């Protein structure tokens, strides 16, 4: 499934998005764990990341289908 990265996470990953080969549907928490194993630079960020699908923030306990990207949002600093 497609994972997209925002803000400082693009620096950590070195890209704006990637394809993660993982069984879907799957729990957000498990997807994040899998990601962190493949990209160690993400690990320090994970505790403070929020996850979004479309225009909604979703809890880590939620299942996602993989039909649309899972978007990872680091702490926000707008204004």
């Amino acid at each position, binding site marked *: 499934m497609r994972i997209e990265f925002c803000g400082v996470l693009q620096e950590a990953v070195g890209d704006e998005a990637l394809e993660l080969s993982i069984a879907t549907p799957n729990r957000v928490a498990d997807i994040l764990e899998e990601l962190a194993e493949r990209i160690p630079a993400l690990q320090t960020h994970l505790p403070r990341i929020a996850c979004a699908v479309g225009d909604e923030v979703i809890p880590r306990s939620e299942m996602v289908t993989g039909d649309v990207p899972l978007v990872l949002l680091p702490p*926000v600093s707008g204004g």
Partner: protein
Amino acid sequence: MERITDQVLDAEILKRETENPACGALIVFEGTVRDHHRGRQVQRMEYTAYKPLAERVLQELEEETKRRFKVAECRITHRVGELAIGEASVVIVVRSAHRGDGFDAAEWAIDTLKQRVPIWKNDFYTDGTRAYQDGVPLSACSSGEHDSAQRGQESHAEQPMRKQD
């Protein structure tokens, strides 16, 4: 006007959009790019947003501001892309019958925007380096979770995480 835009922000447009003969007070807040951040010289700034969510959160923030402070009008726009020193990154326009409500509403709106809207600030320093400013973790619920207006506090790195599982 879109709430997230790469165009130069124009408070006059929001003022015209919110004209209301029952209002005696207009408050405009603009956040502008400063030439310094924590003792370092800033040359310019880059803002990025996760637009699908940011548009919705800004719209909800306008509605919540009006409801919470009983103000008649509230409009918010935030710019993305590269900004020079002095340019506005955010414009908030509030109109109310009485000025006290308007000031409270505008200040709460910008305090809350900084905690809820998926936008990121990347400082470009005069020494050629750049750095994302640390920010506020989003909670899983986009409304009603971060009500405390922590005036003047720019980074919430030490804020305890809301349990997300």
